[in-house]
């Protein structure tokens, strides 16, 4: 290789190495800041009230609420999910299941198990959605209504549910997820305390794989038996116990999980409901709420409470997980693109300059730069273009700090929430928190890049999602 070419190559290698290192430092500094903020939020928050005390305090003050459950091919789990929802502890609520054109026996099962009878009304609110065929009400439990509509996707089904809802608040829940009995009470607390200004509240989503379920409730917290699900347990813990809590404390919460979130119906109606143009409708709605409120100079609050827990089944094979992650990332990019003018702008407050900047760094820039690092840093070092200390620093940023962040999330969980009952669980999760940095983290990055490519190609839709029944106790 001639000298000028070699010099140019050397310069390129050094520039890239500096970029990888800078992004790695920025990423880890952000994680540490989030961890410290989450710790501060945990130790300074009011104590968690017992369910009975919560009920006494909220029974007269809790606003009416509609739980909206979009269901598409949920025959396996729908009965158990609906029974569990109807048994939730809340003073004044209804359950609206939206059968989104299921091809299996979802509607039939609902009809036979809950004695549904057709009503003469159809959802008539201002949100648009695919045509509805019929609305049913349960004879056994009038708090249950079912909308049977043509398929239009999750966002479309939620919009139909919002139109029919009677509650001042609505809770968007997944049909294949299980809410803890007091989760509505816990999640509604900020609405009662914050009054009209509180427009949305999110709760924690946890991995139900391996946990025995009876009557639609997780009766014992256990760890998944599959390694892939274990890895996701640590991942969910990091995302909810650490990141969401920290962003909420900083006033920059930009997402409420689609599996469990409570919204003020009027606020969502004002912004036009869920967007059907993205598969990341949960993120997009929260961004739109922020944008709408900020642009009109209104006072508002979007909150996160760690205690209300929603249990969900996570994929246990790589193909299903890859599909899910690619879809999530595509949804995030679609939402970011739709609200790109919010990114880094002080006009949009902490969600804009902090929340979305962090999202861009962690979900858009870092995966690509990190992947470039995996491919090129060892090569550059082998060719003598980088010092060993530089390579060690990169390895430390990528692997060692990753271990510290995962272990930190576990420590936070153990210090304040303690949802895993046995010492053995903690030991296994600590081991998984270390191991996830060697292989799984790289795979997750790869899926993010694939999601990026899918977005660039303009891919649409949700793809196939296999359903599994819960483990019975």
């Amino acid at each position, binding site marked *: 290789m001639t000298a000028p070419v070699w010099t140019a190559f050397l310069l390129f290698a050094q520039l890239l190495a500096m970029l990888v290192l800078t992004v790695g430092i920025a990423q880890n500094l952000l994680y540490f800041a989030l961890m410290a903020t989450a710790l501060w939020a945990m130790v300074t928050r009011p*104590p968690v009230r017992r369910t009975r005390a919560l009920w006494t305090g909220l029974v007269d003050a809790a606003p009416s609420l509609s739980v909206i459950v979009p269901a598409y091919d949920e025959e396996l789990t729908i009965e158990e999910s609906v029974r569990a929802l109807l048994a939730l502890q809340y003073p004044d609520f209804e359950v609206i299941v939206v059968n989104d054109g299921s091809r299996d026996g979802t509607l039939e099962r609902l009809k036979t198990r809950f004695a549904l009878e057709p009503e003469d*009304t159809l959802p008539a609110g201002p949100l648009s959605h695919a045509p509805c065929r019929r609305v049913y009400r349960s004879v056994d439990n009038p708090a249950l209504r079912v909308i049977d509509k043509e398929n239009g996707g999750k966002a479309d089904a939620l919009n139909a549910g919002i139109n029919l809802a009677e509650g001042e608040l609505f809770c968007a829940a997944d049909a294949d997820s299980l809410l803890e009995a007091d989760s509505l009470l816990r999640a509604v607390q900020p609405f009662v305390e914050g009054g009209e200004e509180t427009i949305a509240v999110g709760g924690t989503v946890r991995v139900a794989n391996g946990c025995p379920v009876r009557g639609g409730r997780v009766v014992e917290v256990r760890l998944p038996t599959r390694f892939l699900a274990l890895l996701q347990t640590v991942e969910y813990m990091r995302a909810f116990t650490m990141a969401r809590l920290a962003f909420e404390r900083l006033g920059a919460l930009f997402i409420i999980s689609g599996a469990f979130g409570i919204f003020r119906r009027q606020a969502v109606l004002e912004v036009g409901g869920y967007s059907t143009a993205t598969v990341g409708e949960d993120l997009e709605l929260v961004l739109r709420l922020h944008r709408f409120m900020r642009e009109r100079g209104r006072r508002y609050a979007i909150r996160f409470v760690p205690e209300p827990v929603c249990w969900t089944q996570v994929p246990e094979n790589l193909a299903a997980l890859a599909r899910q992650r690619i879809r999530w990332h595509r949804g995030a990019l679609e939402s970011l693109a739709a609200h790109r003018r919010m990114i880094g702008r002080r006009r949009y407050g902490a969600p804009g300059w902090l929340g979305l900047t962090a999202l861009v760094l962690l979900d858009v820039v870092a995966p690509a730069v990190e992947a470039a690092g995996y491919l090129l840093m060892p090569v550059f070092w082998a060719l003598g273009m980088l010092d060993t200390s530089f390579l060690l620093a990169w390895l430390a940023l990528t692997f060692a700090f990753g271990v510290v962040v995962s272990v*930190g999330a576990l420590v936070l969980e153990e210090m304040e929430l303690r949802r895993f009952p046995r010492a053995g669980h903690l030991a296994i999760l600590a081991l998984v928190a270390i191991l996830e940095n060697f292989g799984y983290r790289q795979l997750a990055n790869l899926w993010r890049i694939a999601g990026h490519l899918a977005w660039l190609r303009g891919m649409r839709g949700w793809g196939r999602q296999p359903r599994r029944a819960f483990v019975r106790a």
Partner: protein
Amino acid sequence: MIANPSLVEAVSRVIWQLALVLVLIGLLVVLVLVLRRLLEELRRDGLTRRREAARRLILAQLRRSATALEPDTLADLPADFLIELIDELAQMVRGEGRARLAELGRRLGLLDRLLEDLRSWRPGLRLEAARRLSIYRDEEVVPALSELLFDRAAPVRIAAATALLAHRTAVPDLLRHARLDPALSRPAAFPFWQRLAELRPESFERLFATPAPTVRRVVMLKAAGAAGLTRLAPRIAAEAGSPDPAIRRAATTALLDLKHPLALDALSRMLTDPEPRLRAEAVMAVGRRKLIALLGALRDRRDDPDPGVRFRAEEALLRLGAAATAGGTGDR
């Protein structure tokens, strides 16, 4: 090299050395937590048995007679554990039983511990201590809780104010404070206002007669309804004509909660309220409570200019359908 090589090397060295130290610290912390959990697991079975035994013992003594509860067999149990147990039992009993539980707590030294917790740096501990102190009528409790009325955490101020309501001597100062503290004007202060309405209805009425910001007015109206302060119904009905929609709504809800005849007039007015949201809520309330007396006014809402109200009116009429044909009168 594009940057100073020695600087780059120094930074790199700091990064990987720091990473190693942090990993070691992290693993050490996890190890300590796992070991702590293991020890807890070993102790847990014994503690659960002792807790159940203590609970049974206290309950048996509470049932028996008016004699003081005996602390001797409980003294060796951890204080946190006893504080929680007494708090749990205090939620189940009233009057004399609570006083005896407080006496037991005092003899076990739990009162001192709770007073100490009021000075904790953790707002959670201060809040719990304030709440749990509501069963103790001791003199030293009042100044300690009064100090907390100026706590930097609003939920702690609310808990302290609610606990102080049990102390008659503290009420006059507390009511002056309630007018000034914005925390007590928040929806979260509902338990304070409800308890005030239940325990000191005259004081509540006096405060109700004074002007208040909208949010506090709304909370007070809800509290009056929840506490069943029927004698306030005429004044609440007057509020149902307020220019503020939030107050109109809260006043009508309070009258409905009181099951007072004036609720029908208020709800009837709300059915023609200028705010579509309030009209929709009124229509839903008529349907949900099956108020046949308002059937005519409800039918009129089928021609409401707002589509949401029209939809709710149809729904409410459907709900009323069975009751109307059966000639039922609903819950009125």
